[in-house]
């Protein structure tokens, strides 16, 4: 079932592509790590999963792990019920160990906590589960593949990077119509033994993939390794022992393209028609000799008269071309700088905040209560509570002749009312969102000093547990320049080049800030907005010019900030403070601070003096 590569910009048949991925992962779930499947629940996803399962060996376990899975169920831990009955510590394997030799399906993977993702990643790396919990030391084999069901809608709703990086494939099923089932169960089974029989990949294959990966900005060697594995599995799926050029093209399209952070740069020849390259490549490509010097390895289609500019097309160019064709739109322009969104830390924690805080943070003793999923039992405390009652409870059972579990005198009688649940305090986090006016002549100083304030704030972020985000507005639009982060390293890199100039779309800026603030609040972090502008709005929403419209829109947007009761401070940077700034601050229900001679220290001082974000409400209107 050789797939013909996409020709040019034509729509790829996503469903058959998804089926191909299902087959590849089914052949080697462990080697390929797995797949991230984007798209909501529905018949398409179900059909894909059914298809995928069909390809797996019949005895391979497939288990679904729910979103809020507790560590003891994920990794394994103490089986409390069995331990109490047996009177000794009984270990219980978790989902990952249960799935040894099979596949774990992670539900709602875009909301998995970074920590949980880190644990899964460690298990994938070592192919075993090591547990050090609750008095247990265990090691179980766990060679698992992962299918991450990503139901994210927004671009930044995605599974944590640590997990995504270890999964070879990412497919998007949104808006896909399912087609016929290809019925390749036998092919997949055969491919498994073929894969086993394959020898090491020849040098030209490795070199082609590495070159292509570098050109596309895929920096982690893991991406290249997974691509290599995918190429090998694709070859096996087609019954071949050797990797051919079209295997590489498929691997590049499916593995490297989604990881690309930049449009590939061709060294010398600018555009040499990647389309024709590929469509001719696979059919008649004889496997290049393994011992051929990689630089000279020329796939046969080099004879193609259309491309006589160079007499040999290195396989890496074909691979690069395959990546190019499959790149997401925003990278295809070629002129775009690397956006590197792949390193974004997970922000996929959400509404389950109550459950989360019952499991994370600093332990602060325990309380009586009903054991709910996700809660952690404080076993020593529970036993201590039960201890004084032992004699009474034993008497209540009464002496009997036969020794059963119920009247065994050595057994400890623990009742539900003895249960003590561990409590954790999770320090509340906050996000400071700087909204900076990058318009007009003073933009550069303002941006420079804001950048300084951001960095000062982040430098002590480990104390204040503050995240910082930055929105700049100029021209026609407001733009999130720095997504909420706690990392100074990241902030420095992303703020290294800020440009200014143009109009002042204050309303759009307030809208953008509000949207970000609301999204932060849904993640259980208290947002606070810091505006730095001279308040001279001259562009309304949608870029409508004119001061009156701009001011009306800005006031309207400001009122919404107040409605959402989000803390804010409006720093007026105009040389002579204007009444306008005060009006906006009042409309937002926030603070107003004129600061004609802006400098990083002063901004930082202002923000810092606000104290924790949740206290801001009381300061409203202080100016």
């Amino acid at each position, binding site marked *: 079932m050789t797939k013909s590569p996409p020709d040019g910009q034509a729509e790829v048949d996503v469903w058959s592509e998804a089926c191909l991925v299902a087959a590849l992962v089914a052949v080697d779930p462990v080697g390929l790590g797995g797949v991230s499947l984007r798209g909501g629940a529905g018949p398409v996803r179900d059909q894909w999963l059914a298809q995928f399962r069909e390809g797996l060996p019949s005895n391979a376990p497939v288990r679904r792990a729910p979103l809020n899975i507790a560590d003891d169920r994920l990794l394994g831990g103490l089986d409390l019920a069995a331990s109490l009955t047996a009177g000794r*510590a009984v270990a219980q394997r978790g989902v990952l160990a249960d799935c040894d030799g099979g596949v774990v399906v992670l539900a709602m993977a875009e909301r998995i906590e970074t920590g949980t993702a880190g644990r899964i990643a460690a298990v994938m790396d070592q192919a075993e589960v090591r547990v050090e919990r609750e008095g247990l030391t265990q090691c179980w084999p766990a060679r698992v593949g992962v299918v991450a069901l990503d139901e994210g809608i927004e671009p930044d709703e995605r599974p944590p990077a640590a997990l995504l990086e270890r999964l070879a494939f990412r497919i998007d099923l949104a808006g896909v119509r399912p087609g016929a089932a290809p019925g390749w169960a036998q092919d997949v089974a055969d491919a498994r033994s073929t894969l086993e029989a394959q020898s090491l990949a020849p040098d030209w294959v490795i070199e082609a993939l590495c070159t292509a990966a570098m050109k596309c900005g895929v920096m982690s060697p893991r991406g290249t390794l997974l691509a290599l594995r995918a190429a090998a599995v694709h070859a096996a799926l087609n019954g071949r022992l050797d990797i051919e050029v079209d295997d590489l093209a498929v691997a590049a399209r499916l593995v490297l393209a989604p990881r690309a952070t930049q449009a590939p740069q061709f060294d010398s020849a600018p555009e040499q028609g990647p389309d024709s390259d590929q469509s001719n490549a696979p059919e008649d490509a004889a496997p290049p000799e393994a011992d051929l010097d990689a630089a000279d390895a020329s796939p046969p289609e080099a004879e193609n008269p259309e491309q006589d500019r160079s007499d040999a097309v290195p396989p890496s160019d074909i691979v690069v071309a395959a990546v190019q064709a499959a790149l997401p739109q925003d990278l295809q322009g070629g002129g775009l700088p690397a956006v590197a969104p792949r390193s974004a830390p997970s922000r996929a924690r959400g509404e389950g905040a109550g459950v989360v805080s019952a499991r994370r943070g600093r332990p602060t003793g325990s309380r009586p209560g009903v054991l709910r999923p996700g809660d952690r039992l404080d076993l020593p405390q529970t036993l201590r509570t039960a201890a004084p009652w032992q004699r009474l409870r034993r008497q209540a059972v009464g002496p009997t002749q036969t020794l059963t579990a119920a009247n065994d005198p050595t057994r400890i009688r623990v009742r539900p009312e003895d249960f003590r649940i561990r409590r954790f305090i999770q320090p509340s986090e906050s996000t400071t969102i700087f909204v900076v006016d990058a318009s007009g002549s003073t933009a550069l100083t303002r941006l420079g000093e804001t950048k300084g304030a951001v960095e000062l704030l982040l430098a002590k972020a480990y104390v204040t547990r503050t995240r910082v985000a930055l929105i700049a507005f100029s021209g026609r639009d407001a733009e999130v320049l720095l997504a909420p982060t706690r990392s100074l390293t990241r902030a420095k890199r992303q703020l290294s080049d800020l440009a200014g100039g143009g109009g002042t779309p204050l309303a759009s800026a307030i809208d953008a800030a509000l949207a970000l603030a609301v999204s932060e609040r849904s993640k259980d972090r208290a947002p606070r907005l810091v505006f730095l502008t001279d308040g001279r709005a001259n562009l309304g929403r949608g870029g409508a010019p004119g001061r009156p419209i701009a001011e009306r829109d800005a006031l309207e947007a400001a009122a919404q900030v107040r409605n959402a009761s989000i803390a804010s401070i409006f720093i007026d940077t105009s040389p002579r403070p204007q009444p306008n700034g005060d009006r906006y601050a009042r409309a937002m229900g926030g603070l107003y601070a004129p600061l004609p001679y802006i400098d990083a220290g002063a901004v930082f001082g202002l923000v810092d003096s606000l104290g924790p974000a949740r206290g801001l409400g009381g300061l409203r209107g202080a100016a």
Partner: protein
Amino acid sequence: MRPEPIAVLVSSAAPLPSPAPARTRLAYPFSALVGQDEMKRALLIAAVDPSIGGVMVFGDRGAGKSTAVRGLAALLPRLSAVKGCAFHCDPVADAGRCAEDCAPCAQAFGGAQGVVELIDTPVVDLPLGATEDRVVGALDLEHALTRGEKRFEPGLLARAHRGFLYIDEVNLLEDHLVDLLLDVAASGENLVEREGLSVRHPARFVLIGSGNPEEGELRPQLLDRFGLSVEVRTPDVLADRIEVVRRRDAFDRDRAAFTAAWAPAEAAIREQIVAARERLGQIETPDEVLEAGSRLCMAVGADGLRGELTILRTARAAAALKGATQVSVADVREIAPMALRHRLRRNPLDEGGSTARIERAVNELFGG
């Protein structure tokens, strides 16, 4: 007097049971790592002189941080230990001091025969999600449940005694656990006061942390506790990247064969460590080296004496690894970045990284 496990080490061949659950898979050989010389050197230096105080490895995903540490585990020479002691005490140096009621240690200390065994140097991998009770040790639940007796069950810290404790993603670990670990690492002793237990036992280990600074920073107080810090990057030279992929592919296809092929290189490094440890005590430190270290610390504004001490010890271990008999200023130059990088007072507005600041200072002091 220091024990000499080294003499026994080389001759021993048969594997002995280790208290940790056996790994089910072979680790990637340390010597087969491509590039990353600074990280490899820092780990070897820490292996030669554990008193330097651990290594923090910062770096990108997929740069081989975890692989290096896990590879190191397979490489380290074996130790002689008191048989049956939960803390695998050194039969000469610290037997009898581990816990009040450690019978095997008391015997060994009394000079009894046949109570010493050879063990692998422990390299304990702290799994994310480990609970505090398993780290420090806690009430032995089984004992409490079945017999109603209080008994201490040693945790990971006890197991890491005399070895290495590796924490991947330190910055994802809960703060109170990090505090606790660093405290124990610095004092060499674990004090347990919980669940009605009061226990103290030795826990001297080399702490190795790794993390990606993009996922959150470590508090400077914590950073300072690490002796060395290195930064790793994914290789950006094509030839290196090809070699990384080639070796990893070969390893994944046939672990046993790959490991066997690298066994001689592994043995060479092991011998280098053993020889360096032997030599460490005899290495001379000229005054000019001490002075170079102090001047360097002053020049970059590293606080406290810890920096100077680390420079001295690290340079000495580096010299020992090279087979030299004397520390030289060149050694100081070489190891200055890893010893000082994380001790500089952070200036968020300084564009250049700490490494650049140190290199500048080195060049100014000792000439370009």
